[in-house]
């Protein structure tokens, strides 16, 4: 299951990043070569950056790539390390649920009701902001699956699998 989620996220990310490159290259091309700047590329690029960043951050979170200080963990017993890892995952989980999922959803709802459209693409701004709760849910999934895995391991197994 987790592999499938990873693979799908990976494909979406590579596609969005590729699109971002093409979009900005097109902007430069239309501005300097065709001398008639494209009107939608600037906005599309900004929206794509937001999507790539949030979705990528969720993916990187699943890969445990966000930088942290692990000095405390090294001083603990295997059982202590296991408990600490679960505790850290829970803190991040709490933040993601409150701010990204709940805060993000309420925000998307308000913006959707307000019906604001983007200035050049004329798409609802709510779509752009929806990546907040989407990436929040993805991190939620990763964190829950991490916690489940750690809980089911003995402390020594947990250390060996780090």
């Amino acid at each position, binding site marked *: 299951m987790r592999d499938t989620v990873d693979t799908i996220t990976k494909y979406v990310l590579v596609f969005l990043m590729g699109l971002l490159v093409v979009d900005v*290259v097109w902007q430069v091309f239309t501005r300097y070569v065709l001398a008639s700047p494209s009107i939608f590329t600037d906005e599309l690029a*900004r929206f794509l950056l937001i999507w*790539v*960043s949030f979705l990528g*951050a969720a993916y990187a979170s699943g890969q445990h790539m966000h930088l942290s200080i*692990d*000095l405390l963990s090294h001083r603990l017993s295997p059982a202590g390390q296991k408990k600490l890892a679960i505790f*850290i995952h829970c803190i991040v989980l709490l933040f993601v649920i409150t701010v990204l999922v709940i805060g993000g959803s309420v*925000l998307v709802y308000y913006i959707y009701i307000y019906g604001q459209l983007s200035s050049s693409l004329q798409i609802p701004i709510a779509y752009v902001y929806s*990546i907040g709760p989407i990436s929040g849910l993805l991190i939620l999934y990763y964190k829950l699956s991490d916690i489940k895995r750690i809980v089911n391991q003995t402390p020594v197994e947990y250390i060996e699998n780090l």
Partner: protein
Amino acid sequence: MELYEILVLVLSFVVLLGIGVPVAWTLGISGVLTILLSIETITAFTTMAQRFVTSLDSFTLLAIPFFILAGQLMNKGGIATRLINFAKNVVGALPGGLAHINVVAAMLFGAIAGSSVAAASAIGSILGPRMEKEGYSKEFGAAINITSSTTGLIIPPSNTLIVYSLASGGTSIAALFVAGYLPGILVGLSLMGVAAVWTIRKNFPVGERGTFKELIQSFISAFPSLFLLVVVIGGIIAGIFTATEAAAIAVVYTLVLGYYYNEITFDNLPDILLDAVKTTSIVMLLIATSVSMSWVMSFESIPQAISDGILSLSNSPVVILLLINMILLFVGMFMDMTPAVLIFTPIFLPIVTELGMDPVHFGIMMVLNLCIGICTPPVGTLLFVGVSIADTTIPKVIKPLLPLFAAMIIALLLVTFWPALSMWLPSLFGLT
């Protein structure tokens, strides 16, 4: 009163970071906890969610993923090898030849790429094994590679200077870029000085002198890569491109070059894109949470409180600049560069502009200062990369790192108290 808010912010930050919560989340969590003291719960959550998104909604920030991608393409596309070869023919015959090659190659790489991690991994993985074979210790090789990669963050193009431009409210990227050249070269030269003394004392081998013909050949082979410098920096300085457009051009240029060198194909391109996405989104999450944190701080008028505090300690510019540098060195040990720039620029910039310092000069000073921080434990992005590439451990590289840090601190003091070092070139180009 701001004291209570400052206490919650600092305490939650230190505790969460200390127990091992990733830096990016720590920034976000401390921000939320602090803002919860002042506004109602759901509003606090939605405000923070909104801040995260809006802090990334910028065309200037787009330069960062493109410079990262261009760096990855250079790394995989055979450009690093050609730059190293050229560096070998220029400085290889000096005492401690390989160490100098490492520094010069890092500076050349830094002059065409925007981030330092790509330089550290590309150059370290090529030169590290060769240094070991010639009798250098692994740890010394790693230390040289780690510190010399920082020059790429001062020598333009530089993602960190782009972040500073945003944090300082739109300081000219062109001016910052040009201002970085001399300080970046100064750092490189001071590292080479330490390497020379060290290798003479340890009797490390002198590399063989290449012929003039080899020098020319290696230059010709490196020329297409070095020409990128003219396109990107030239374009930005002349005001032809924005930084983002220049970065996009760098991507296309390196892509074509890597394809021509047969190093980049349709098969490995998706992996390169994914690597760039990972690095980008890690930086972007840090930007989103740091900008939000910075917003919370100004909402609670914390920067004002800190600057009043500093200005009440002394009114001597020398003392204040030394104090700011010491705070930044300390902060740099625990915080990655991007959040440190985003959080501390709004705090310190008003103080130093009051003292008559140019925002461009301050930006170079701050970035150079934080370059030392990314080489120090416990949090040092470059340290981690350099150590893992050299296959050694952090405690072992500390000893060879110390004299290199001393050299960087001397360079930092020169940059701090000698404004012309940063400001002369930009004024020559009429950018200030």
